[in-house]
C-alpha cells in the first residue's frame, strides 16, 4: 500500500532521512524504531506531506505522492498522529472528530463518531475543549481518534504510547490490535519500547542516523547485535 523508494529528507546540511526504501502492506502492522533523532518523525512528515522530500519517491496505492497536496493525502487514506499532540484548538473533542470525518471522508456519520469516541475512551470528554481541558494522555487519545475518524487505510502513529501508565499502555495496545482487525487498517507505528513493538508488530524497520539499518520480523531484528547496540547501548540484550 505504502512504498518509499530511496526517500531522503535534508534540512540544510543535515540529512534526517537518507535513501530509505520501505513498504507497508495493507494489513500489516509495521514498527518504526531507532534512537532519538534518527529521522522517524521526519519520515512521517514526508509521507503526510508536511515536509518535502529532497529526493526519492513516495507511492501510496501506486500513486506518486510528490504532487499530491497535503489535504488530499488524508482523503486517500493516510491518517497520522503527532508526537506532540496537535488538537484543533478551538473545537471540542467531538467537533475535532466531525471535522476529521467530514473532510477526511467527505461525509458525516454520527454513529461512527460515537464509535470512535468510545473506542478511544473519550466519550465522557466529548464536549470538552481540546486545547485547555485535556491532560497529555487524553490529547494522545484524541490524536488517534482524529486519525481514525478520517477512515484511514494507513494509520501512522508517532509515540502514542509514550507516557502512558503500564495499565493504560496495555489497554491502548489492545485497542490498536482490535483496531487493526476491526477496521482493517495498515499501521506504521513509532515506539521506543521494544516490548510493545514485539508485541504489536508483524515487522520492524530500524532507522539510525536517517538510514534504514534493518527490516524484518521483530525476532530477527531484535536479535541483530548492530540494532541492539544502536538502540539499547547494550550488546547483550
Amino acid at each position: 500500500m505504502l512504498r518509499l523508494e530511496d526517500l531522503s529528507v535534508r534540512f540544510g546540511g543535515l540529512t534526517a532521512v537518507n535513501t530509505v526504501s520501505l513498504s507497508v502492506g495493507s494489513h500489516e502492522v509495521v514498527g518504526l524504531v531507532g534512537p532519538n533523532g534518527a529521522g522517524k518523525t521526519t519520515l512521517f512528515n514526508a509521507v503526510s506531506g508536511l515536509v518535502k522530500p529532497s529526493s526519492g519517491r513516495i507511492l501510496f496505492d501506486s500513486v506518486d505522492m510528490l504532487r499530491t497536496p497535503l489535504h488530499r493525502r488524508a482523503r486517500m487514506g493516510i491518517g497520522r498522529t503527532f508526537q506532540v499532540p496537535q488538537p484543533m484548538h478551538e473545537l471540542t473533542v467531538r467537533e475535532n472528530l466531525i471535522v476529521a470525518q467530514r473532510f477526511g471522508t467527505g461525509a458525516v456519520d454520527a454513529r461512527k463518531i460515537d464509535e470512535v469516541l468510545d473506542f478511544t475512551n473519550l466519550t465522557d470528554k466529548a464536549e470538552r475543549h481540546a486545547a485547555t481541558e485535556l491532560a497529555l494522555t487524553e490529547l494522545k487519545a484524541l490524536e488517534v481518534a482524529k486519525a481514525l475518524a478520517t477512515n484511514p487505510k494507513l494509520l501512522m502513529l508517532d509515540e502514542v504510547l509514550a507516557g502512558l501508565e503500564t495499565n493504560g499502555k496495555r489497554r491502548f495496545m489492545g485497542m490498536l490490535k482490535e483496531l487493526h482487525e476491526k477496521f482493517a487498517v495498515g499501521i506504521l507505528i513509532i515506539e521506543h519500547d521494544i516490548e510493545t513493538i514485539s508485541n504489536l508488530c508483524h515487522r520492524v524497520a530500524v532507522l539510525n542516523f536517517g538510514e534504514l539499518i534493518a527490516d524484518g520480523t521483530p525476532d530477527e531484528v531484535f536479535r541483530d547485535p548492530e540494532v541492539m547496540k544502536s538502540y539499547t547501548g547494550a550488546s547483550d540484550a
Partner: protein
Amino acid sequence: MYVSKTGLAVIAAAYVAVPLLLGSNNYVMSLIVAAMIIGGIALAWALLGNLGGMVSFGHSAFFGVGAYVSALLTMKAGMPIFAAMLLGGVGAVVASLVMLPVLRLKGPYFALAILAYAHIFKIIATEWSSVTGGSAGLASVPRFPELMGFDLSGKTGSYLIILTVLLAFVAAYRAIRASHYGIALRAMHDSEDATRVVGVNSTLLKALMLFVSAFMTGVVGAFNVHYINFLEPDYAFSGLWVTLPIVAAIFGGYRTILGPLVGAVTVYLVDQLIFKSLIPSGHQLVLGALLVAMIIFSPGGLMPLLRKDSRRKHAAA
C-alpha cells in the same frame, strides 16, 4: 433556516416600527443608515476574523472597489443600480483575487499586507483618472430609483435597502457558520497543520472566506456610493472604513454574528447623540476610553455581556 420568535419580532420591528417611528426624523435616520453601513463592513470583517482566522486592516480596499465598480457601471454603462451593486460585490471579489498570495501569511503579516493593497488600490484610483475621474472623483452618482411610487433614495428607502442587505448577510453568515465548513474554519485557528492532515484544504477555505467577506464589503461600498452620490479615492479607500468597523465588531463581539451590527449601531449612535453633545470637539476621546474599558472588562464584547445579563435576570426571576 431557524429564526427565533424574538428574532422575528426584531426583524418586523426593524422593517415596520423604525420607519414609522423615526422615518420623519431625517437626522436620526441618516445616523442609523450610516451606522448600518459601518455595521455591514463590521459583519464582513468579523466573518473573516471569526471563520477565516484572519485580521484585516485593509477592508477599505473592498469597500472602495465595490463603490467604484458600481458607480462606474451605473454612470458609464447605464446599468440598473441594484445589478450594479451586486457587480460591485463581484468586483471586490475580483480585487481579492490578487490578494490570494497573502493568504499564506499569518496574523499581523496578513493584516498589513491587505492594508498595503488598500493603499495601492487608492493610488490606482487616483492615478487612473481617465476612468475614475482621478482625485476629483465622481460627482452625481445615480441615486436609488423609485419603486412603485416609493422613492428609495430617501432616508427611509435607503434604510430599507441596507436593512435588507444586512439581513441577507446575516443569513449567509449563519448558514456558513453552521455548516461543516464553518467548524473546519474554526478548527484552523492556531492548528493549521493538524487541520490539513485530516483532509481540510485550508487554503481554499480561507480563500472562500476572503471572497465572501470581500463581496459583502463591496456591496456595502456600492450601497454607500449610491446613497452619498459622491466618490473620490481618499473617501472610497479611507481608513475609516477599517477602523470604525473593527471597533464596532470588537465592541459588539466579533465572535458572534449580531455583535458587529449591534456594536456598530450602539457605538455610532451613542457617540453621535450623546458623547458629541457632551464634548463637541473631543468626543472621540470618550470613544477611545470606552474601547479601552470594554476590552479590559468585557473582552468578548457587548453581545456576551448582554446575554450573561439576561441569563442572570432569568435566573433571578
